[in-house]
């Protein structure tokens, strides 16, 4: 069954919930907060001044280090390789290799790693038309997340999936072929539009597309496990007008 996206362009972070965690910084517990596409260190009023002071005093400030690492990796495709493929794919049991600030970022709590992956995905979704060298990495990132979601949704953990990464405005589809394989046609933008918002499986349905004009009221194009027909679901956040 296929559907064409009716997504309305807006800021990529529209509808993404605030994420927050705490880190030990200069002996105290400080807060890192992601909101509206940006990471901020809530307990440091002037990050730039603190950065300078830290450099002059040859001291480390964990919050500022994290902000800097975030900025360095905001379009780093390794994030999409390393980050979680979904709720069942948990990171953190392994020890981070030394000198790898990305592993440290992905070890943060409070959904910040998911927001970092969304940030990277959004950066690359913006430049899909000019992307050739990185296409394999983008397609693999999409494949892993779609596969994890679909297998979990259908309860078929050995299901073979063949993905065709289509353009953002091309029809999206999930169909079974005669050998039982699932043929998937989705754009890379699905990672931001649907997966990053936690909408991949909603109400027992696979979400092909999600659209909103205000980030509060969302229209989801979904499929039941029979893969047809496409059904529209409307989701409204509290406080929506």
């Amino acid at each position, binding site marked *: 069954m296929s559907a064409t996206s009716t997504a309305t362009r807006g800021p990529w972070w529209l509808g993404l919930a605030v994420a927050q965690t705490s880190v030990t910084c200069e002996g105290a517990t400080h807060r890192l907060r992601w909101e509206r596409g940006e990471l901020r260190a809530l307990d440091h009023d002037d990050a730039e001044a603190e950065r300078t002071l830290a450099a002059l005093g040859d001291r480390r400030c964990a919050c500022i280090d994290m902000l800097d690492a975030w900025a360095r990796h905001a379009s780093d495709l390794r994030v999409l*390789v390393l980050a979680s493929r979904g709720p069942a794919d948990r990171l953190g049991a*392994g020890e981070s*290799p030394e000198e790898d600030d990305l592993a440290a970022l992905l070890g943060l709590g409070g959904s910040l790693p998911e927001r970092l992956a969304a940030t990277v995905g959004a950066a690359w979704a913006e430049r899909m038309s000019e992307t050739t060298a990185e296409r394999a990495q983008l397609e*693999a990132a999409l*494949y892993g997340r779609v*596969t*994890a979601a679909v297998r979990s949704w259908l309860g078929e953990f050995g299901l073979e999936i063949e993905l065709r990464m289509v353009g953002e405005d091309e029809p999206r589809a999930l169909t079974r072929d005669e050998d039982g394989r699932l043929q998937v046609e989705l754009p890379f933008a699905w990672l931001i539009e649907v997966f990053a918002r936690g909408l991949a499986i909603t109400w027992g349905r696979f979400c092909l597309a999600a659209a909103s004009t205000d980030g509060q009221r969302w229209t989801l194009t979904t499929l039941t496990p029979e893969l047809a027909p496409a059904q529209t679901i409307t989701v409204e956040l509290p406080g929506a007008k």
Partner: protein
Amino acid sequence: MSVFDAELYLRLAGERALLGEHDHNGAPHDSPLTAAARALVAVDAIATSQAQQVLDDYELALMLRGQERMRHRVMRRQVMRRHQRPPEEQAPTQLQSRRIVSCDRVIQQPDGTMHVHHVILGEDLTKIAVTLRSTQTSAPRRRRGSARMMMRGGPGPGRGGPPRVTLTDDRGASTQAHFSGSGSDSELRGSLQADQPLAEDTRWIELDGQRVELVGEQPEIEVSIEQLPDEDLARRHLWRLAASPNRFMGSAALLTPARDALVAAGALPADDPIFEDVRTVLVAMHGGGPAPSSGAGKLPEPWRSLLARRGVETGPTGTLAIGAVTPTFDGTSVALLGLEATEDGFELEVEATPGLGGGVFSEASLERDQLVWWASDDRGNHYLGHLNGWSGSDGYATGSIEFWPALDPAATQLAVRPTAERSRAVIRLALSWPEPTEQDT
């Protein structure tokens, strides 16, 4: 028809590994993703550096998901990058010719004997091939694959450990030498390596005051380099896999990702008989899969004759001093120092530059493939060797290559062929064994 994208193929394989499609509890080098990457690199479907980047990415991803095996690989690679020069900077240095003198001298010791087979002398090392026997226990047969050990000090076999010996040359220089080798309580075979090299042209050497004259000419050894015949890259890769037990670690199951990658790349058709042949070899040598439908008798040479003599334990025993150094071939140079034959095989003591391709660095890297060690004799028999132990540093390695099956007792010539990707060296040796001493019988 869509163009095959090798990077995408590897990345999708990496994704499947993250989703738990592969069992990752094998040995560190038993990664299906690595097997696929090596295959694609071998047929020039992807650049080595690009394939390595994919491996790096997914091994770190697996490590972050708690896979201890991957943690080891990632850490090793970090060490490698910190300490190893890039491959393009690792031009081989020419190995030094050694003075190697056959001795065949038995020295009586308080609780046994020390049989000195040959002495290796160079600017940078002095090494003596010896067999230590205790008179307190009966001599067992030595077999290939005995555990190697490095021990310092101690009184010798049957007396708590291998010896430490004082060596002296004809200039009066003196140094300690430590034993490295393998064996049992009653017999140890290996070498004594001096802490400091003695004079290369010394006329004699004393071991704890017992003098051994160093006389006699070094045998003439014929060494040549041959280009390998043109062969399909995919077939060459598969046969190299079969001949590299260190890397393939005995698992025929790992042939599957290599096969899938080669088929996906269009390098071979899925029903090519070579897949079954290679699987037959892997299962015959290591087990790890269902019995192949075709027997070893249908395999191409040298595999057919090699497998036919598997398990033979009637080989001649003895040691030979060699002292042959090859020119550089495929960026590698090899020196053969000595050969030790046992009933079930033989072992070559070798040096190589820039390395032997062994150890953790090679497992964690796609950069350089290891040599495949073939040999054949004048009776039409073939022998296959693998790296049994090595030591060294960036740009140089010394180690031993263990060959099977046993040497044919009737063979008089042996051609050893360390084989790289596109060429190989051929070192021709005369198999003339010293008369056995009383202790050897």
